[in-house]
């Protein structure tokens, strides 16, 4: 077909719409032609002009009426019908603002929640890598089978491996290496501690990242003896240099060494990471695998993961690393970055999406119920339309148009809601949303919402539309009664109430389990009391071991003197902080043991609320006694000295004889939620050495721990002041309560619990609105019947009881179905539950009981209102 012809027709149609002619105009033209012809015939037969026209009109009948009827039968063009339906629907929705408001709000909640969660899932799980061809980006390791373990151990490539691969004529991958850098002290007018990464010259190129200013890390920067350079992140550039171009070329003093700033990275690449340093390979580590350096790579175009793994395994099998070749069965493991970034998060994502889907379904059921209830009052109107020739298809289309309008209005409001809550959701959702790929309402998300809206509209609109359009016409017309549809919608309403209750119960049971699990998690005995201490993280600005040593000793000494402080000490790795270091110790009888070592200043144990099981705790005097002393935890003491007392024994630690002066209880250093951690971290053997750094040691920041007396006022602020007052220049990072540390270890479970509880509450709320609304409609239609019964002596209580009893069945069936659904669904969250089985009976009982009571109250309120109307008024209502 000629496209211009099509275009012309389209334009003609549009014009028709605007000028309100089109089909309606055609019909009018046809009918007027008829009348004119008739009039001319009369004139030819001798009737004078005006009379002829009048007679012709009379003979034709009411022109406008026939025109309308003709239109109803013939229907307009598709677009005209739609416009007509839209106008009609809009009028109807505006005429019933209460109904429309509830329906639109309900849908807005459902669509809004689903859209917001979809947006986060899109950013976190579907498109977390905003780079060209992200599917080519992979993470490389060597997988070495372990006979004693089910899964192979994985090691990073050695520098020699990388060099060998790069030397190939057509390497299967382009490798970029990176490692996390230690926090560094950046000196300046306001010194601070910064985080960063060490990267090689290829790393930024893998992602197609072009520096925002200056240059990236180059090959020459990574050689040994190269001058020190640093590339800074966009956020730090803005904060420290105000985004000025002259930052390039300036010297940045990091850990007492000058580094030249050579570049700034763009805002969309880890904007909150301040430092990007050259990754330098030490000659010691050159041929050793598993040094901690990560190898990212981009696959050669068209290569599959398996092909790449095979090729790389072939290349590396000839490389001799640290005296060994790759053992039999060792392979290069190639994993996409996408899989790595999203590993383990899809369960959470699916559960959130599923919960949002349930909310949306409940919203749909709600609106379907309201439509059905309202539809019963529209029987008369529908009957009239049917009798003048509107077909069933035409009616269904009209009713569906109304549903889609509701859905569209709900979606519009829902999008506003999603947009408004998105930031809050992102910061509280247990999914990793990177600053590189922030969650937004982008085209993909909006497209999904549009589909969702249409599906929603059809879902809640179709059943009522089919039901209403099937209704008998003549009966409705004959009786002219509003009540005709009562039985029809009452049965439908009961179904919907049951469905709604079942859906809500699945959500509420999940929430109930999560809450129970979380309260169990929070009541785990950790062995210490996070609620009894305050921590101060500060360090001197001068990066020198001796400065650090005196700084912390003086700081703790000063705080210890405060009258409202019970105890004060310091430790390098606080429990719940999640870092540790291993060292080997030897007993006086030659037994060797690898232990977790923490360094402490006296007062630390008292501050976190420990008392010794044996021996004593370190005193201030131990620092100056010239002897080295240490404390063991119970587990280490038992392992080292199974036969007797540990206190008083001498061990060798970092080549120094050290006296064990006491034994303290074992702690749960990782918090209660440590089930997924390896047992070596969960049940550590611990040595607490006193903090006596040698001048050659790398300066290490300490955490000052303070146990205040009951009424210590403004402690955080005073701690800050003290940290600044003690040293010449100091960096105060933060003051935290012990409970803040505890909270930080349960962030993910808490977020899951809060989110699933909120979704459960939302589901409950929508269900109650739905049940209450449907009951109110049903009751309104039965007003007359209620009046009759009360006139015959039934009391209000009788009527209410009967109403509630009538609703009890659908509620009970809904709860039975919901329990079944929950029983099947809650196993999905079994990995989220702490010491709680997914079929925990009390949690199920609380959810079902609570929902049943709430639902019956939602029925009782409108029923009671109806029963307290004066019977005379009820009888007259109609």
């Amino acid at each position, binding site marked *: 077909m000629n496209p211009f012809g099509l275009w012309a027709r389209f334009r003609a149609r549009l014009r028709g719409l605007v000028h309100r002619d089109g089909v309606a105009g055609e019909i009018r033209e046809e009918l007027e*032609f008829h009348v004119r012809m008739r009039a001319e015939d009369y004139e030819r037969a001798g009737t004078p002009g005006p009379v002829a026209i009048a007679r012709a009109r009379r003979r034709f009948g009411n022109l406008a009426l026939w025109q309308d009827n003709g239109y109803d039968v013939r229907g307009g063009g598709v677009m005209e019908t739609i416009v007509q339906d839209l106008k009609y629907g809009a009028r109807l929705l505006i005429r019933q603002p209460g109904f429309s408001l509830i329906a639109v709000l309900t849908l807005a909640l459902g669509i809004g929640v689903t859209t917001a969660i979809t947006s986060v899932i899109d950013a976190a799980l579907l498109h977390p890598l905003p780079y060209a061809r992200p599917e080519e980006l992979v993470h490389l390791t060597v997988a070495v089978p372990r006979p004693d373990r089910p899964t192979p151990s994985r090691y990073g490539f050695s520098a020699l491996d990388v060099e060998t691969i790069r030397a190939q004529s057509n390497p299967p991958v382009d490798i970029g290496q990176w490692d996390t850098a230690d926090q560094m002290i950046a000196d300046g007018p306001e010194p601070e501690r910064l985080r960063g990464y060490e990267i090689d010259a290829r790393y930024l190129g893998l992602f197609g990242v072009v520096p925002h200013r200056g240059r990236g890390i180059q090959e020459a920067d990574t050689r040994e003896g190269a001058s020190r350079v640093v590339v800074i992140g966009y956020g730090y550039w803005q904060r420290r240099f105000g985004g000025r171009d002259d930052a390039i070329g300036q010297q940045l003093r990091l850990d007492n060494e000058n580094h030249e700033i050579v570049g700034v990275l763009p805002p969309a690449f880890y904007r909150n990471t301040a430092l990007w340093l050259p990754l330098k390979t030490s000659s010691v580590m050159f041929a050793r695998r598993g040094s901690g350096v990560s190898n990212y790579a981009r696959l050669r175009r068209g290569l599959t993961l398996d092909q790449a793994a095979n090729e790389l395994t072939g290349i590396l099998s000839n490389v001799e690393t640290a005296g060994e070749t790759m053992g039999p069965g060792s392979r290069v493991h190639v994993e996409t970055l996408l899989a790595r970034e999203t590993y383990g998060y899809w369960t959470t994502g699916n559960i959130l999406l599923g919960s949002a889907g349930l909310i949306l379904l409940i919203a749909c059921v709600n609106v379907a119920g309201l439509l059905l209830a309202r539809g019963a009052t529209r029987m008369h109107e529908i009957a009239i339309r049917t009798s003048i020739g509107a077909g069933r298809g035409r009616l269904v289309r009209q009713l569906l148009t109304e549903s889609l309008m509701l859905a569209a209005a709900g979606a519009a409001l829902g999008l506003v809601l999603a947009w408004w809550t998105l930031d809050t959701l992102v910061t509280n959702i247990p999914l990793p949303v990177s600053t590189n790929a922030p969650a937004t309402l982008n085209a993909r998300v909006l497209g999904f919402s549009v589909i969702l809206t249409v599906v929603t509209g059809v879902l809640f609109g179709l059943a009522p539309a089919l039901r209403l359009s099937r209704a008998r016409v003549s009966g409705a017309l004959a009786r002219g009664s509003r009540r005709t549809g009562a039985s029809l919608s009452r049965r439908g309403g009961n179904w919907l109430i049951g469905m709604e209750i079942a859906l809500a119960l699945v959500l509420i049971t999940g929430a109930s389990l999560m809450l129970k699990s979380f309260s169990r998690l929070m009541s785990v005995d950790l062995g210490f009391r996070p609620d009894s201490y305050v921590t101060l993280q500060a360090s001197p600005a001068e990066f020198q071991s001796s400065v650090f040593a005196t700084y912390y000793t003086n700081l703790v000494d000063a705080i210890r003197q405060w009258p409202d402080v019970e105890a004060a000490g310091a430790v390098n790795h606080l429990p719940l902080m999640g870092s540790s270091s291993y060292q080997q110790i030897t007993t006086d009888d030659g037994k060797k043991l690898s232990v977790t070592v923490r360094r402490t200043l006296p007062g630390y144990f008292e501050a976190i609320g420990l008392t010794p099981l044996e021996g004593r705790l370190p005193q201030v005097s131990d620092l100056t006694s010239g002897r080295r002393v240490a404390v063991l935890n119970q587990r280490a003491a038992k392992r080292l000295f199974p036969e007797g007392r540990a206190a008083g024994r001498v061990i060798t630690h970092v080549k120094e004889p050290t006296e064990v002066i006491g034994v303290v209880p074992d702690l749960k250093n990782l918090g209660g939620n440590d089930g997924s951690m390896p047992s070596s971290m969960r049940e550590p053997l611990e040595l607490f050495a006193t903090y006596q750094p040698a001048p050659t040691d790398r300066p290490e920041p300490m955490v000052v721990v303070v146990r205040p007396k009951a009424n210590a006022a403004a402690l955080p602020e005073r701690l800050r002041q003290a940290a600044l007052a003690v040293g010449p220049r100091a960096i105060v990072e933060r003051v935290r309560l012990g409970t803040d540390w505890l909270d930080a270890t349960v962030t993910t479970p808490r977020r899951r619990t809060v989110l699933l509880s909120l979704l459960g509450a939302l589901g409950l709320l929508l269900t109650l609105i739905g049940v209450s609304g449907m009951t109110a409609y049903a009751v309104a239609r039965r007003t007359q019947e209620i009046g009759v019964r009360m006139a015959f002596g039934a009391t209000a209580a009788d009527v209410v009881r009967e109403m509630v009893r009538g609703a009890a069945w659908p509620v009970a069936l809904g709860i039975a179905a919901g329990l079944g659904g929950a029983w099947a669904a809650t196993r999905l969250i079994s990995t989220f539950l702490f010491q709680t089985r997914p079929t925990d009976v009390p949690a199920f009982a609380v959810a079902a009981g609570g929902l049943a009571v709430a639902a019956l109250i939602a029925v009782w309120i409108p029923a009671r209102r109806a029963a307290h109307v004066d019977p005379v008024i009820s009888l007259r209502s109609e």
Partner: protein
Amino acid sequence: MPKKASKTNSDQLHGALDMLVLKVLADGPLHGYAIAVRLERLTNEILAVEEGSLYPALYRMESRGWLSSEWAVTDTGRRARFYRLTRAGRTQLAAETESWQRLTTAVASVLES
């Protein structure tokens, strides 16, 4: 059962009008007014109802596929909508004619006996 009866009545009425229109159009395309004039003449104005009622009937038959229509110019140079019998319309006409004849024969034989 008033409902059933009224439905049958209106159906019969529709049926008769439809059959007559189809019959009139069997000889060739006509516009609405011409159809009305022919019907009048053929039925001696027995079926003279409001003329406007012809049009919803035409549209209904068109939507059922018995008729097709298009705008054309009359002998006197005016624009008018012409209706034409489709193949489905001819089949329908034949079927209705047959069933009508069967009915009238039956009724006639009852009345004559």
